[in-house]
């Protein structure tokens, strides 16, 4: 029995239930952070087995140690011991999907070659049995020479079985390179190890063979993250190693793959038996329809339409409740605290600003709830597959689909996900068009404008005009992204495209605890991350909108007031104060630039503050309108916008044309500081974020101008 605390790493292909095992082992004793300098999640937890506390690390999912993606690189570099602050694990649990054994064992065989104690965890045995696959763990164990445990991670008692196996595990190292590389591959590996790896890297001896194999199959360093001073020599050595394999009649890119699969095939030929019963699975039957070239896109569109209609309709009662809560809360604070500056700051600054954003929490929660259900069922992968055909037609790469779809939540993870696109030009174009995808931060602005100015007329019995407008804005983002991509492809033509291969996991019921947990996590991030900035900006804005203190001139005095020629005797003192505040003066200064788009100076201030985060726009408007409100008044932001009248023209500030113009501006403008920062980091240049800001803002300005001018003249 192992009495010493171990560092246990979980490794496996994506969708093998690795995280489920991690959660089952660690329970609440886990910490999620990012790897230093990058946004790949690092999950670490602890588990107690036989009274001993062990550390458990859930490494990012990987198909191979010959990494193609950043996630896979993290897994590889952790296992070879490249990180100063991450020790090499004492034991690696390679989690494999039993229903897809051969492909999963490819990674397992690579990990075994690293000379670290390995245990194979055959997960999803129930799924395999459903597919008519029977596996004998003992036979696999004897052919691979490592302990094998078969479980279904959903079952708690089987997790106890796994814990028992860990407790009794003999920490002996597996025999390296059990799959016998042929002579030419062995010679090529030796050359690379002796002439390059030993001299130019500090990769430990046990991992040098696997690094040599990686370099041979890649044919280059292909690593944008670090460079060698003597790269030319390295490339020449790799080329020489490849030539050795070619002279032996092999293909350097495929040599390792073929030999490994031969070894895996031999190891599992007797251990895994397939019955003929499940030739066409339920998944295949559903896919025949869902991924059909005509039905597929129609289903995808209907799913999105239903999703946005539901977000809009189902969230409304909760939003009304939150709205009421903040209005009443504001009134209570206003009446309880003695009059003074702090009272005004709390009511008109903090509560109004925060209330304007918290109100959208139900819609954010519904949006992510649907996204996680689509992911959990396996439909999201199909959506990417269906869209791939379309993407290829417009000139984008299939690998762009997943980053673009991530952009629905937030552009930042989407931009990070473009690292999977190998071709630099394809990657840049995807990054440049990705912010058009309607991220969740735009949702509050869309929702406010739609609720206030688009009638809730029923269409086709189940949809409303509001829901359809909402859906239309998301489609508008996709269309603009595609349009921009087509234009950019013409400007930067690319060479031959590499094929897009992705795994379509079997359909399954989503794990509801995961769906609810992840949705709640997103809600928490929205409130804590965006909320902090919104409250901070609302406070600063309140000061800017409240100072300098200006007394409203009396009617008699107004004749001699040179400063304010537009003084209106019907204006209330609060409104007068706001117009003469720092914020008001700044808004008035930029008003001529935005007036052709139908925006007044208050919207102008919102456009500036929303650069910190798009949703700040709503908080800003709420703060401004609350300051302007006469004492004793209390109405919702929606009502304030509908009733706002321009004191100079006497006309309403907002019309349907203004609302549409504003929504178009938000759909197209590059108004997110964080996105600009991440683009700078990903492209390592200010050239691309600057170009992005200029072209998106120009496009937004021109489109809003056209929309407002047409709309207001109809």
């Amino acid at each position: 029995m192992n009495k010493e605390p171990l560092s246990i790493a979980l490794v496996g292909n994506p969708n093998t239930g690795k995280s489920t095992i991690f959660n089952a082992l660690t329970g609440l004793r886990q910490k999620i952070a990012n790897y230093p300098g990058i946004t790949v999640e690092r999950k670490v937890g602890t588990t107690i087995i036989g009274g001993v506390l062990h550390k458990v690390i859930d490494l990012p999912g990987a198909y191979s140690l010959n990494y193609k993606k950043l996630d896979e690189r993290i897994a590889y570099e952790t296992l070879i011991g490249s990180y100063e602050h991450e020790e090499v694990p004492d034991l690696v649990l390679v989690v494999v999907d039993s229903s897809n054994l051969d492909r999963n064992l490819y990674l397992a065989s690579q990990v075994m070659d690293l000379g670290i104690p390995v245990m194979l965890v055959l997960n999803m045995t129930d799924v395999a049995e459903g597919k008519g696959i029977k596996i004998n763990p003992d036979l696999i164990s004897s052919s691979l020479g490592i302990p094998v445990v078969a479980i279904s991670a959903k079952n708690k008692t089987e997790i106890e079985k796994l814990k028992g196996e860990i407790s009794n595990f003999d920490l002996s190292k597996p025999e390296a390179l059990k799959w016998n590389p042929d002579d030419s591959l062995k010679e090529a590996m030796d050359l690379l190890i002796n002439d390059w790896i030993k001299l130019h890297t500090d990769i430990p001896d046990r991992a040098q063979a696997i690094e040599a194999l990686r370099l041979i199959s890649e044919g280059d360093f292909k690593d944008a993250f670090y460079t060698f001073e003597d790269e030319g020599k390295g490339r020449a050595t790799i080329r020489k190693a490849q030539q050795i394999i070619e002279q032996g009649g092999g293909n350097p890119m495929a040599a390792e793959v073929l030999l490994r699969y031969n070894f895996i095939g031999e190891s599992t030929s007797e251990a895994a038996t397939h019955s003929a019963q499940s030739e066409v699975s339920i998944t295949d039957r559903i896919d025949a329809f869902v991924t059909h070239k005509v039905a597929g896109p129609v289903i995808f569109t209907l799913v999105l339409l239903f999703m946005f209609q539901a977000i809009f309709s189902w969230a409304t009662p909760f939003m009304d409740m939150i709205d009421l809560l903040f209005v009443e809360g504001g009134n209570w604070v206003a009446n309880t605290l003695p009059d003074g500056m702090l009272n005004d700051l709390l009511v008109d600054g903090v509560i109004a600003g925060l209330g304007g954003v918290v109100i959208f929490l139900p819609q954010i929660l519904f949006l992510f709830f649907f996204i996680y259900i689509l992911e959990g069922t396996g439909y999201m992968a199909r959506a990417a597959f269906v869209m791939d055909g379309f993407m290829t037609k417009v000139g984008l790469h299939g690998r762009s689909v997943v980053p673009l779809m991530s952009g629905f939540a937030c552009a930042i993870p989407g931009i990070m996900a473009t690292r999977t696109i190998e071709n630099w030009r394809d990657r840049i174009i995807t990054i440049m068009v990705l912010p058009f995808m309607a991220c969740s931060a735009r949702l509050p602005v869309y929702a406010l404008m739609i609720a206030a100015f688009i009638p809730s007329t029923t269409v086709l019995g189940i949809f409303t005009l509001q829901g359809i407008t909402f859906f239309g804005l998301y489609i508008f983002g996709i269309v603009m992204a595609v349009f921009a991509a087509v234009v950019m492809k013409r400007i930067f033509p690319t060479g031959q495209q590499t094929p897009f291969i992705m795994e379509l996991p079997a359909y399954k019921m989503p794990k509801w605890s995961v769906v609810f947990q992840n949705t709640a996590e997103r809600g928490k991030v929205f409130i804590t991350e965006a909320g902090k900035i919104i409250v901070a900006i609302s406070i600063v804005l309140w000061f800017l909108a409240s100072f300098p203190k200006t007394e409203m001139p009396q009617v008699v005095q107004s004749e001699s007031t040179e400063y304010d020629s537009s003084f209106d005797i019907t204006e209330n003192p609060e409104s007068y104060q706001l117009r003469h505040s720092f914020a008001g003066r700044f808004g008035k200064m930029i008003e001529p630039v935005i007036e052709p788009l139908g925006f007044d100076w208050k919207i102008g201030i919102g456009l500036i503050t929303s650069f910190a985060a798009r949703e700040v726009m709503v908080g800003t408007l709420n703060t401004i309108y609350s300051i302007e409100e006469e004492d004793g008044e209390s109405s919702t932001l929606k009502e304030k916008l509908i009733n706002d009248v321009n004191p100079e023209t006497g006309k309403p500030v907002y019309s349907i044309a203004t609302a549409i113009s504003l929504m178009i501006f938000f759909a197209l403008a590059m108004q997110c500081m964080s996105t600009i920062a991440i683009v700078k980091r990903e492209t390592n240049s200010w050239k691309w974020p600057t170009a992005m800001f200029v072209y998106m803002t120009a496009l937004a300005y021109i489109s809003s101008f056209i929309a407002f001018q047409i709309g207001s003249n109809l």
Partner: protein
Amino acid sequence: MEFDFQTGVAFGVLAVVLVYLANRFIVKPLRNSQASSDHKCGPGCKCGD
């Protein structure tokens, strides 16, 4: 403008908020851009984004 207790607290809050915003949008991004990855390099290898 009278400088009473409420005004003092309000300006105190403003000061805290300004420090937070400066830290969030200026200091932290600057620090992040300077921070290098903890990737351990071999001889002749230089790291960087």
